[in-house]
């Protein structure tokens, strides 16, 4: 399968590394408006400076690795060229636009696949194992959070403009809502607070799941510390706790590190477990078999609809 990449930032590099480990997948072309920058980094891959050239190239899917605010229009254009698209979260900045985009792809009988790589992290596999084995019994309450610092390099400045990135709700909370719905099913009711003040974007949401589990989700953008994810599941027989800052089996302090991977570098320590690679393998399977249920765009739309209720400060019964 041939994958064309649009945008060559830090995320694209992560995907290129992952693709190298997958026999049945190869990067057919890379588009970036700054071709020279790309040429300095990668060899042996067709590099184009015009997005339409990428879309005209022979590929099975286009993976968008561009800022959130650019994805909607670029995805549509790819669809116009008859290409399946793998988009990042969020592919648009409100659920209305995401729904419209999904419909656009469905009408053209093409796939729009959200890159929900959080599902593939080793710690989440481990949680699933314990839930399947009933290790901690009947789950009663879950706390989950994601704290992210401001981007501090030019390339990623768009993250700091919440009108362009979607802020903490669309960049962070949606991912955790998806994880929760993957683990516990549909949401019965939702309530949330959301405030943005002087470049800090903070939201907290309380969900009651249809299965009865209570969930509290925190998302913070503009955190002054380093990126972290944490959760605690409490059941009738025990607790499961995770904090990404305590789960690094190797850390480099100093050593000239920059913050390029500010939002990508956690939970990658599990040996031979690359979540991006596992997600891409599923995507290959999904496209080859025409299986829409793997990384279903409707799952993302559902998570966004729940997220939209945050900030309304009212209890909303979810139908």
């Amino acid at each position, binding site marked *: 399968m041939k994958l064309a990449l649009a945008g060559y930032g830090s995320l694209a590099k992560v995907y290129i590394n992952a693709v190298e480990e997958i026999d049945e997948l190869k990067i057919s072309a890379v588009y970036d408006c700054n071709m020279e920058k790309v040429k300095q980094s990668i060899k042996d891959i067709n590099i184009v400076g015009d997005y339409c050239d990428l879309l005209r190239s022979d590929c099975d899917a286009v993976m968008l690795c561009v800022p959130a605010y650019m994805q909607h229009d670029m995805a549509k254009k790819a669809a116009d060229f008859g290409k399946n698209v793998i988009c990042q979260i969020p592919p648009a900045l409100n659920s209305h636009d995401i729904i419209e985009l999904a419909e656009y792809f469905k009408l053209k009988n093409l796939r729009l696949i959200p890159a929900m790589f959080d599902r593939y992290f080793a710690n989440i596999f481990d949680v699933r194992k314990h839930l399947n084995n009933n290790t*901690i*019994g*009947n*789950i*009663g*309450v879950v*706390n989950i*959070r994601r704290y992210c610092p401001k981007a501090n390099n030019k390339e990623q400045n768009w993250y700091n403009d919440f009108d362009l990135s979607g802020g903490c709700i669309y960049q962070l909370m949606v991912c955790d809502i998806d994880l929760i719905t993957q683990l516990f099913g549909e949401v019965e*009711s939702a*309530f949330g*607070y959301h*405030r943005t*003040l*002087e*470049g*800090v974007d*903070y939201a*907290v949401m*309380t969900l*009651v799941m249809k299965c*009865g*589990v*209570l969930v*509290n989700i*925190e998302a*913070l953008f503009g*955190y*002054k*510390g380093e990126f972290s994810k944490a959760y605690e599941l*409490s*059941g*009738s*027989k*025990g*607790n499961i706790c995770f904090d990404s800052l305590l789960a690094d089996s190797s850390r480099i302090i100093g050593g000239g590190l920059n913050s390029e991977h500010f939002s990508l570098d956690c939970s990658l320590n599990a040996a031979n477990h690359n979540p991006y690679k596992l997600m891409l393998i599923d995507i290959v399977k999904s496209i080859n078999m025409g299986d829409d249920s793997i990384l279903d765009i409707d799952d993302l739309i559902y998570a966004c609809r729940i997220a939209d209720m945050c900030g309304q*400060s*009212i*209890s909303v*019964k979810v139908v």
Partner: protein
Amino acid sequence: MDSIKVAIFSVAHVHTHTYVNCLLANNKAEIIGIYDDNFDRVKPYTEKFGIKYYSNCNELLEQKPHFALVCSENALHQQLTLAAAAKKVDVLCEKPLGITKASMAEMLKACSINGVKLMTTFPNRYVHSFLNAKRAVEEGRIGKLIGIKATNKGSMPGGWFVKPELSGGGSVIDHTVHVADLVNWLLGCVPDSVYAVCANRLYDGISVDDVSFVNFKYPNGVFVSLDSSWSRSAAFPYGRDLTMNIIGTEGSIFIDYFAEKNQVFSNEKSKAEWSYYGEDKDMMMINDVIMSYEAGYDFMISGQDGYNSAIVALAAYCSIREGREVLISEI
């Protein structure tokens, strides 16, 4: 000054044992007796410490204590506080102050009319991490406050705590008040709205909530989201928890009260344990109350503070019943 005489009103609450030990360790304090309607549960105190037992609280009040330490079931706080106030005896009352708005209002009124002091036991206000956080917030070190995520989880206490007619509810009323008081104190105001959810998910055979989230918002826009569940399993290394993450525009403050611990792994135990070595907040609170009589200053925490935090828990139950965000003014 002569010793400060303390009357213990009931030993029903699990904190009584700690308070008694704190009072016994303070050479300015004298426990003059324990009133309880159940002698069996007072026996350990009379036998071990030789403290006199009273089956009638008025008889104990005749001994002229400086204050009564009310450690009864929550539902009896009102009755015992009114008895003490009628005899012009100050009251240090276990939290929550009461289980209804009317009962708490009556307690405040009776203490005011009789000119006695009423304090709610909120020892967390004496903890250095919370004092440091309050100072840092007041100095503007984390900028403008946005919101707070807090947890006050614990193990399920059982006994009268799970009998709503005595406790007033489950995890919500047991654990909301500490955090609500700390944030009220931190912000210098009280919340105006509350939204809460709860369920009985973890323990069979109890008729109160064991898991809960209580969300409340202040007039200045600062919001708090609290996990007040009894979700610490028996397998967990420690039975209690109190954390707060205060998010501001210039930074955040993370407080974990029980972080000062050794992790102990012993072949003698079936599980890992946390050995907390941090400060003894109960001792600090009791010592301060005793000192207040010597030095002539007021109690650090008022009955009104107890009211202002308990009303959040009562609003939470109202929100749960009605499935909506409620205003404190509606309660």
